[in-house]
């Protein structure tokens, strides 16, 4: 059993009229099965409103399933006794960098989580030092979060989660509000944590470039998982991706168009160098 496993996970938001009496339900997650192995880097893609955030909030017991079950580290999130274990095991990073930093000084914000779970003072300091080091923010430890760039704020948020010593971090569109530099910065941090500290990563995004390095991509549409596989497999089904109103990386799309016109290229080309190699091979073979 993986670190995060869900069976027939379903969540309904209850629609209400002006008086607050329920008028119906909005099924945001619909019979989702997932199994994420420890150490895996999983990307979740999907159009706005496809239920990505709702799914993510289940991994931290911020929402509890309407139907079905989700286990985090083999613990059922619906069981009240598991609440703090689940939240400690799977940390969560949100979209808006300003709205998730609590401390007025960087290092104090990183210490917030450990304080909450009753870690002794000396141990807190140790964890804060290590977490800041892991995200490369040690130089900013005495700064006010307000003076940092978006990418730096997100790295502080990641450090805050790391200080709880989680096995898994769930990031819900952490780069959506950042500029390209900030995006690269955050992504590099996440990748390093995955490779060096063997943290399981669930990255929700709608930037295709961020997905390429994932071990596995999950595509959601209308609350369901509609595609799943390695980045090459998923992007290789370019027409299907377009049906779910998702883009593919430019080079993948170019290769796909050329292939439609009859060039013998492989499916799901993700990198420019790979594309160049294949084109050169085709050129040498056919002499065109």
């Amino acid at each position, binding site marked *: 059993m993986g670190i995060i496993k869900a069976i027939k996970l379903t969540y309904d938001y209850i629609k209400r009229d002006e008086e607050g009496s329920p008028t119906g339900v909005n099924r945001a997650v619909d019979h989702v099965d997932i199994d994420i192995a420890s150490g895996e880097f999983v990307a979740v893609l999907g159009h706005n409103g496809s239920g990505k955030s709702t799914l993510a909030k289940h991994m*931290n017991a*911020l929402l509890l399933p309407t139907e079905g079950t989700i286990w985090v580290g083999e613990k059922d999130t619906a069981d009240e006794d598991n609440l*703090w274990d689940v*939240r*400690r095991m799977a*940390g*969560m990073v*949100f979209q*808006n960098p*300003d*709205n*998730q*930093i*609590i*401390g*007025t*000084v960087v*290092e*104090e914000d990183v*210490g*917030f*989580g*450990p*304080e*909450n*779970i*009753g*870690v*002794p*003072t000396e141990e*807190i*300091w140790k964890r*804060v030092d290590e977490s800041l080091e892991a995200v490369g923010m040690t130089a900013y430890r005495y700064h006010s*979060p*307000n003076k940092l760039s978006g990418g730096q704020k997100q790295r502080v948020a990641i450090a*805050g*989660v790391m200080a*709880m010593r989680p096995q898994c971090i769930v990031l819900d569109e952490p780069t959506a509000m950042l500029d390209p530099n900030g995006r690269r910065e955050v992504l590099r941090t996440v990748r390093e944590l995955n490779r060096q500290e063997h943290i399981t990563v669930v990255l929700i995004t709608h930037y295709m470039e961020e997905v390429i390095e994932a071990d596995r991509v999950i595509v959601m549409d209308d609350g369901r998982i509609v595609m799943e596989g390695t980045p090459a497999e998923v992007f290789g089904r370019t027409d299907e991706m377009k049906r779910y109103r998702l883009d593919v990386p430019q080079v993948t799309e170019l290769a796909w168009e050329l292939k439609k016109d009859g060039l013998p290229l492989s499916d799901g080309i993700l990198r420019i160098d790979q594309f160049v190699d294949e084109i050169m091979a085709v050129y040498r073979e056919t002499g065109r």
Partner: protein
Amino acid sequence: MIRDITIGQYYQTDSVLHRLDPRTKLMGTLVFIVSMFLADSWIGYAVSAAYLAMIIRLSHVPVGFIVRGLKAVMILLLISVSFNLFLTAGEHEILSFWIIHITWEGVQQAVFMAVRLIFLIMGSSLMTLTTTPNQLTDGLETGLGWMKKIHVPVHEISMMMSIALRFIPILVDETDKIMKAQMARGADFESGNLIERAKALVPILVPLFVSSVRRATDLAMAMEARCYHGGENRTRMKPLRYAGRDRLGYLVMAVYLGLMIALRSLL
């Protein structure tokens, strides 16, 4: 405009006063306030003045900086001084003109009142000038911890204060942004009568309110995700610990308070 208010500001420097435990400083402020109500003679005020001067020296905060803080309360000061000046009845009339009677007792009262207010403001601003907002909330939470027994939500209040401190600059920036956006659309905040100006603020307040609610919801979720569940079983990264200088501080306070009480009952 909002940024100009200096009361409650922190003055960054290194001094004994900066290094004192915030609880000591809170108690010191309380003692000083009490002492100002004990003073009722010239000698009493002279002792307070000397005490205040000593603390200002220790704080390494420039006197000019402290005095500037008085500007914000100038109006309040003038009103209370004039009340005392014109409305104190007494034997020794100095000036009498139409309905205005100024007495010697009135002058004395007015001067005392002014000195008392100025000292109070200077004394309490020394607290905020030498203590970071964080230390202040920490001091309140730890120092008032005993009030939890009588069901005062001390932890919650101090958490609210520190969150407010974190978000005030963000909201100020946001207000600035919204104002500029509205000005670019031709909004005018500077002209018109009071009602018109108040109306012009509505397009600023509404989006500000909406975004604050959104921030509050997000923040609550982020705190919950990081295992926040109130003050119970919480440890601290920076627990407050008294040092030798704090004991000395309490001693100085006690001596000063004793002196002020003695002066009041003897004279």
